[in-house]
Every structure is written in structure tokens, then in C-alpha cells.
């Protein structure tokens, strides 16, 4: 079944995230409101520690301990149960992390197939394996399906993580410093990959980064400082 993308994929209103208690309380996200429309490539730019990763965790429903209102695909996240959120993440959201977070004990193909472990319906194994190989091709890792992640370079690992994020055809891709651990040249190639995915697939992407290079590839940039939105362009 194909799900039609919503007009507004993400609607965050007055989001606040605090850490600690009493006087030691630190506000990581301070009254942030933003909308992300379907097909948009949004970059959230800011220095380290400005709260952008925390904000991404909230937008990806990984963190539910926040104040404010958040709706994803026109569903109120705060009203959803853990199982419903997990299903939403698995089916409609893809994640790419700075540290890749690959499974070191299985090969590249099994890493790409990891999201299928938590799909409720029994998947067509043959079709999925073919799709995994196609995705590896698409991110430039054709023929590397049997390789272990430990044998890959940083850029290759991040491409592998992107392939994993795309396996179940998500409508929203959330990227947390996807080029943060890569050298300039490798970072550029990963950025080009995101650009291509956005342009060719019409994928909605939200990427938090402190690198201008990636931000410049986005269709919209929000600048964050000390947990607050300071500029939008």
C-alpha cells in the first residue's frame, strides 16, 4: 500500500527540552517551532552543543520527554503509545547518524536489512534482498554486500547507513551530522548523495549539521544557537 505524503510532514510548536532538576536545569531546546513540508530538504545548522541533535531526537520520536506540541504526518506524537511510535519510526522515518551505528557482527547486506526485523508483516525475503543489493548499488557500494562494516572506510560506512535508512522507503529522512565524521572529500560525496535522493526521489530530508557545505545543499536552512532558532533562510 502506498501512503500519500502529507502536506506538512513535521509540525513542531514551541518545543522545549530541559535536562536536570532545579538550579542545575539546562535548556537544550528553547521554544523552537518549525514546519517541514513534504519534499523539503531542511538543514538545521549550528555549532556543537546548540541543541540541534536533541531537536532531531525529538522530531524522530526518539525522545518523548519534551514540552510543546509535535505532529508527524498530521498525527499528535504525544498522544501516541510506544508501539505506535515505533511503528511510525519503522515505516515512515529513516535515520542516519554521525557515528553510523552499524551492526559490526553482520555483513553489509544484513545491516541494510536490519529494519525488516521489526516489521510486523512477514516480508518477501527474496525481494528485500534484491532491494538491499539495489540500494547498495545506488549508494556506490555495489558488490560489497558480503563485506563486513569493519572492512569499510568512513564514507562507505555512512553510505551503508544511508542505504539502511532507505530500505523501507521512508517519507522522512532524519540525518544527525551525517558528514561529521568524514573528511572533506568523502563528506562532499555523501552530501551529493543526499542531494540526489532529494531531487530524484522527492525525499523529505531534515539534516542537522555544523558544516556549511551540507547546509548549502538544502532547500532551507534554520540556524540554531543556544537551543533557539536565530535565523531562517
Amino acid at each position, binding site marked *: 500500500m502506498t501512503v500519500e505524503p502529507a502536506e506538512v510532514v513535521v509540525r513542531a510548536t514551541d518545543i522545549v527540552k530541559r535536562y536536570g532538576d532545579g538550579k542545575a536545569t539546562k535548556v537544550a531546546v528553547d521554544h523552537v517551532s518549525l514546519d517541514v513540508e513534504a519534499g523539503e530538504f531542511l538543514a538545521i545548522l549550528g555549532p556543537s552543543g546548540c541543541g540541534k541533535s536533541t531537536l532531531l531526537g525529538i522530531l524522530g520520536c526518539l525522545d518523548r520527554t519534551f514540552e510543546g506540541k509535535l505532529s508527524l504526518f498530521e498525527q499528535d506524537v504525544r498522544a501516541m503509545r510506544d508501539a505506535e511510535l515505533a511503528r511510525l519510526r519503522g515505516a515512515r522515518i529513516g535515520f542516519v547518524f554521525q557515528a553510523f551505528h552499524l551492526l559490526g557482527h553482520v555483513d553489509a547486506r544484513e545491516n541494510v536489512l536490519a529494519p525488516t*526485523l521489526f516489521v510486523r508483516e512477514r516480508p518477501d525475503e527474496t525481494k528485500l534482498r534484491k532491494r538491499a543489493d539495489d540500494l547498495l548499488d545506488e549508494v556506490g557500494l555495489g558488490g560489497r554486500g558480503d563485506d563486513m562494516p569493519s572492512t569499510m572506510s568512513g564514507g562507505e560506512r555512512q553510505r551503508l547507513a544511508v542505504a539502511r535508512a532507505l530500505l523501507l522507503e521512508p517519507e522522512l529522512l532524519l540525518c544527525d551530522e551525517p558528514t561529521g565524521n568524514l573528511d572533506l572529500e568523502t563528506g562532499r560525496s555523501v552530501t551529493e548523495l543526499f542531494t540526489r535522493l532529494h531531487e530524484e526521489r522527492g525525499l523529505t530530508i531534515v539534516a542537522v549539521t555544523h558544516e556549511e557545505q551540507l547546509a548549502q545543499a538544502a532547500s532551507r536552512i534554520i540556524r540554531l544557537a543556544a537551543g533557539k532558532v536565530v535565523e531562517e533562510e
Partner: protein
Amino acid sequence: MRLSALNKLVLRDLVRVRGALVTSGFGIMAGTAALVFFLALGLGVRGVLLGEVFPIDQVELEPPKGSSFGQLASFALGGGAKAPRIEKDEIEALEASPFVAGVYPKLQFSFPASARGGKELLGRDLNTGEMIADGIDPALVGEVGDLPFRDPLEACEGSGGCQRCATTKECKAPQYCEARQNEKGFCVDPVPAVVSRYIIELFDKSIAPAHGYPQIGEKLLSRAEGMVFKMWIGESYLGQAKQGTPRWVHARVVGISDRAIDIGITMPIQTVRRWNVEFSGDGAGDAYSSVMVKVAEKDKVGEVVELADELGLTPKDTRARDVSVLLSGVMALLALVAGIILIVSASNIAYTFRVLVNDRRREIALYRALGATGGDMMKWLLALALTVGMVGGAMGVLVAWALSLGADRLGATRLPDFPFKPETFFDFPPWLVLGALGFAALFSLLGALGPARRAGKVDPAAALAALQ
């Protein structure tokens, strides 16, 4: 989470952390092996003791011991002592109880007797200075072999009748003349008698080796014609009956029965009643010395004993109950030891899995990001623990079984023969094996429960951010 996916994750873990899991599984294996070994040993020994030595599905009731001088004392007094009695109304009260499946009165010899015979089996005749015997309802004994267990005079009733006689010389062997002194009687078959497995075991394992006799257990069972011997009734080394003239009768052991008295022989009650009247007067034949009660269910023995107490009767032999209590206590103690091993194993599993969850916070967080629920993560850890428990438990059962084979072999080769020495000291009923596997799984799950709950509560955002 689908079962196939759960299976995939567990199989991967069995390879990834096999060292830690083998250590955890070893504890479960040791605990299960101890539990199964001890319980199987207890059940095996209990089966022999309560099934063959002291059957627990029956209880023999008698008047309080104080009211009886006992059979031998009675003989010493020339059969003049008043025999203990159970009246018919007490028998009827027992029969009316829902806990009772059958009531079978017994009547002891109220006169002295001795016996001589066994040459055909043992090579020479054996003499017994005193013969202890009970009479029992033939219905209680049932089928014991090819020969009927009934009063031989019953064959003389009806149209055929029996040959009249005054002495045994007038009868055709193996028949003898069943007649009081100086009276006419009938040529009848030897009186059938059954003996207990206990007395056969005692003879074969203790008396036969000491006196150089052959063992007779198997022969006795296989001989269709039975072993014939002669009894001198009305007199023994200890004295003579208060009335009547001692005489010879013939008897024949027709088989082994659980209903036979441990030491002595057991005959049809009608025969014993007739002889009691002959040597002790009319009063010795119209009441019973004890009553064998078949219990409807083994766990209802207590209710039957309570009823007997109300009727003024007491169990003749409390050994079965004593042995049962003793064995239950020993089995409980050994099971407790095994339980402690399992608890230690569970704590070992708890530690292993706690370390596992700590090491895998990133992986758990990633799975949560990919669509897993907290419950999925719990299931994953618990399924892994269950696998360790089941495999460890199955190994434990196998180890216990192997140990039992070794113990049986040692028992067969190193232990001397003794009465009721079984081929195996162990009993492995299916419920024991399934129960042990269940316990192994339960303790593994209990050990892993805490860590699994922690895995289910891992904060994915924090775990992923901490490792950026």
C-alpha cells in the same frame, strides 16, 4: 516482533556471546542435572519401597494391639487366648466409605501349626517349627497362576462331589483326605496358598545363600503345579490347640501375591475359618482378626485411617506411611539443594545479561530507531534467556540420565544382592523431565527479567547521542 526475526536475533547472539552464554547455561545445566538426578533417584527408590515392599494402595486394619496377645503368644497359650475380633458391622461401615475401593477381611490361624516340605525344589525338606498363616477372601488375591485360589472343599459341592475318605492313603496324589480325626472326610486338592514377594526375596537373598539352597523365586513363579508341602495343624513346638486332635493337611504354594502376609502363608479364608472352629471352637470362625482395605485413591489413605480410628481399629503396619514421609522429606531436601543451585544460576544469568545490556545500549537504541518497541527488546533478551535455559535444562536432563546409568551400573556390580534390589534405582517419568525443563526455563527467565526490563527502558535518544 515476528517469531522469525526473534529467532534470527537469538541465533546471532548464540554465536556472538557464546562464551558468556555457555557459562550461564552451565549453571542451569548443573542445577537441572542435580534436580532431575535426585528426584529420579527418590522416585525410583520410592517406587520400589512403596510399590513392592510396602504397597500404599492398601491398608490393613486390626483391633488395637493391646487387645491381642499376638498369634505366637496365642499358640504359646495353647490357642486358648481370645483372638482379636473385627465384627461384621465394622466391615460394613468400612465398605460404605467413599474412600474405600474394597474391604477384605482376614482371619489368622487361632491354633498352632508347623510345616514340612520343599524337597522337590530344594533337594531336601525344610521344617518350620511354627507356621504363621492368614486366611483371606479369595477375591482379594484374584488370579495368581493356573491353579485356583479357593477352599478345596468348594470343589466337593454340586453334582460331581468328592470321594469320601478316612485317611489320605485312600486318595489319589496330590489329593489328601480333609477329615477330622476318626471322622469321614473328602479327598481334596492341597489347600492353595500364596506367599509374599518379601518372603521369597528374604529366602533367596539371605536364607538360601546361608544354607546352600537354590533360589526359588523364579522357579516358584514358573511352576504351574506349585510347590506342595504338608502342614501339621493343631500342634507346634510351642504348644497344642485347646481342642481337636492334631492332623496332617496338604497345602500348595500357587504363587506370589501382594495381598499375602509378609512372613508366613496366606490361604482361602473359608479353609482357615473351618480349621479355627475345629481347634478353637465356634467363636473363632465368626469374626475377623484384621481387615485389608483397598483405598480408592492413594492420597486418601489418611481418610481411611481416620475412619478406622472412629471404629476402634488401627493400621497394622505404618511402615508405608513412615517410609513415604521419610522419602518425601529426603526428596524435598535434595530438591532444595538443586533449587539453590538453580537460584545461583539465575543470579549468574542476571549478571551476564546485565553486562550484555550495558554493552549493547547503542545497538538497542539503534533497533528502537529502526522501529523496535521497548517490548521487542524485552522479548529479545527473554527469548535469549529462554534458549539458554532450555538448552541448559535439556543438557542437565541428559547429564542426570547419564549419571543414573553410571550409578545403576555401579549398583549392579558393586552392591551385594539384597531383598528387592531393583534393576534401576531411578525413575524418569515424563512429568519430571518436562518439569525440570520448565524449572530451567523459569529460573533463566527470572534471572534475565531485570536486565530485559532495563533493555526495554533504554532511552534511544540518549544512548545514540552519547556515542556520537
